[in-house]
């Protein structure tokens, strides 16, 4: 392992990692792709804000209001810097990645809207992929049903890669938006954004990235990616629940109709009409997740202090180690790339003749190994591979090779139980 990266020191920052589970089992947390654990730096920042700096933001003119607003807006600034956004005003706080994806989907085909980029009706097309999380499928299905537009999708190859062979037929001048995962939450695959984007630009469409599984794990720079929208979620990035992020180009935020209406997203309100605040506030109706944004600010500070490059390198080593070790378990089949090329630290697999639900439960019950089992909110991808479910181990900065050893030991035991 990278010697500069002191995983034991990092583990001390995460209180739960030294927790003993009922029955005296140690915790081996390999479910960060589902949601990550939180360092004491985030927890304490939130506790302190709640205890002595809390008030509503924006509206209040007193000391607490000013402190709370400052902390909330500082978090926006931190997040903007973290993903390389040209302006903090391009960062919209949502409750999770799903809301961010829906916010963009609802911008299309809204009769209120006049910008041609966001009109949507029969004949218009939306393109997603077969490896998407439900949160990047269902909003577009609902949009297609509301507007009569057509939903299309990229297939996935047997190796778990985006099938780009029909890119030019899929993305055409009828396409209004292409939305795909930056990194798959099942396969670990990192998608070739630049190649897709090139075609999207030719077609004159917009492009969104679901970066829920990339932003927490490696350096992501929206300016370098050059896409139009990007969504991610705080709870997978050592931040709290209840906070997500939509980044979008300023001019697109300007062009989009409002989504949720209410306090703080307005400029002036009469009974019969309203004018709206400039972005990002235009999309932040009501009291925002204040403490959660502040917590996310502390989370990106934490990740930055460790270093995103170092985190990515650490996860790469863990993935290499895991792919090797899992390869030796009889009957185990990895679903997704088995090499390290363009893949992150998420490894899903099947174990012959044993249902993942049984794998997961015994791993937890007997070894304290927390893996995720099921379709991981990517049912169409599992249908594509003809399997109802997989077992998924996902790694983060606090995981160790010893934990992967525990996983493998557990799998051998599971095989014995069901032999």
């Amino acid at each position: 392992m990278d010697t500069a990266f002191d995983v034991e020191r990092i583990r001390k920052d995460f209180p739960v990692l030294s927790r003993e589970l009922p029955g005296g089992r140690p915790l081996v947390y390999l479910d960060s792709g589902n949601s990550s654990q939180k360092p004491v730096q985030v927890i304490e920042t939130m506790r302190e804000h709640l205890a002595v700096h809390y008030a509503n933001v924006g509206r209040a003119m007193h000391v607490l209001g000013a402190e709370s607003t400052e902390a909330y807006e500082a978090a926006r600034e931190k997040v903007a810097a973290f993903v390389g956004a040209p302006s903090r005003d391009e960062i919209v706080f949502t409750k999770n990645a799903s809301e961010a994806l829906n916010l963009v989907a609802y911008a299309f085909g809204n009769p209120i809207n006049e910008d041609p980029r966001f009109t949507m009706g029969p004949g218009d097309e939306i393109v997603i992929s077969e490896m998407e999380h439900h949160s990047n499928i269902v909003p577009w299905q609902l949009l297609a049903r509301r507007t009569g537009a057509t939903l299309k999708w990229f297939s996935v190859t047997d190796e778990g890669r985006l099938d780009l062979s029909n890119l030019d037929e899929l993305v055409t001048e009828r396409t209004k938006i292409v939305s795909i995962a930056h990194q798959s939450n099942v396969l670990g695959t990192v998608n070739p954004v630049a190649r897709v984007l090139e075609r999207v630009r030719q077609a004159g469409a917009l492009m969104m990235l679901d970066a829920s599984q990339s932003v927490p794990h490696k350096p992501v720079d929206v300016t370098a990616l050059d896409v139009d929208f990007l969504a991610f979620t705080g709870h997978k990035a050592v931040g709290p629940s209840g906070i997500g992020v939509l980044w979008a180009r300023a001019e697109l935020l300007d062009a989009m109709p409002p989504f949720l209406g209410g306090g703080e997203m307005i400029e002036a309100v009469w009974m019969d009409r309203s004018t709206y605040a400039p972005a990002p506030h235009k999309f932040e109706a009501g009291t925002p997740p204040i403490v959660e944004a502040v917590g996310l600010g502390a989370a990106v500070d934490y990740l930055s202090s460790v270093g995103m490059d170092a985190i990515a390198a650490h996860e790469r080593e863990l993935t290499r180690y895991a792919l090797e070790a899992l390869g030796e378990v009889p009957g185990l089949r990895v679903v997704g790339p088995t090499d390290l090329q363009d893949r992150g630290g998420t490894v899903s697999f099947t174990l012959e003749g044993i249902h993942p639900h049984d794998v997961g439960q015994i791993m937890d019950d007997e070894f304290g190994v927390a893996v995720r089992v099921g379709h991981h909110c990517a049912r169409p991808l599992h249908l594509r591979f003809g399997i109802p479910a997989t077992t998924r181990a996902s790694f983060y900065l606090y995981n160790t090779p010893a934990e992967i050893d525990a996983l493998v030991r557990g799998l051998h035991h599971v095989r014995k139980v069901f032999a």
Partner: protein
Amino acid sequence: MIAESMYQELILEHYKHPQGRGLRDPFDAEVHHVNPTCGDEITMRVKLGDGDKVEDVSYDGQGCSISQAAASVLHELATGSTVGETLAVVEEFTRLMQGRGQVEPDEDVLGDAVAFAGVAKFPARVKCALLAWMAYKDALARSAS
């Protein structure tokens, strides 16, 4: 080990050696149930006889050990009992499963099915345990009509 509360010897036994598995003729009703969240499936046939007697419960399906073992245990409990008796068991089993681990199971009513008590603590697994039992209830309703 906590595992013992869930993967009872009896459950594993039924999973590895399912009782009464396979679809048989004759039957009064056949139903097909799916748990869409996890993909578990079961096809179940019921044959009723005189005096409300359950003559045969035959089934086929795929899924985790809990869902498969539950079907096997159900077959054993139901076959040869009366509809009324089995409905009482179904009701008690459902109550136990939906009790989030807070319900004290009635062993006299449940018989071997009490082995599933540990499942109630795992909301994600409750549906697996109930799949066959809900299919059975449905099949009974269809036989009657």
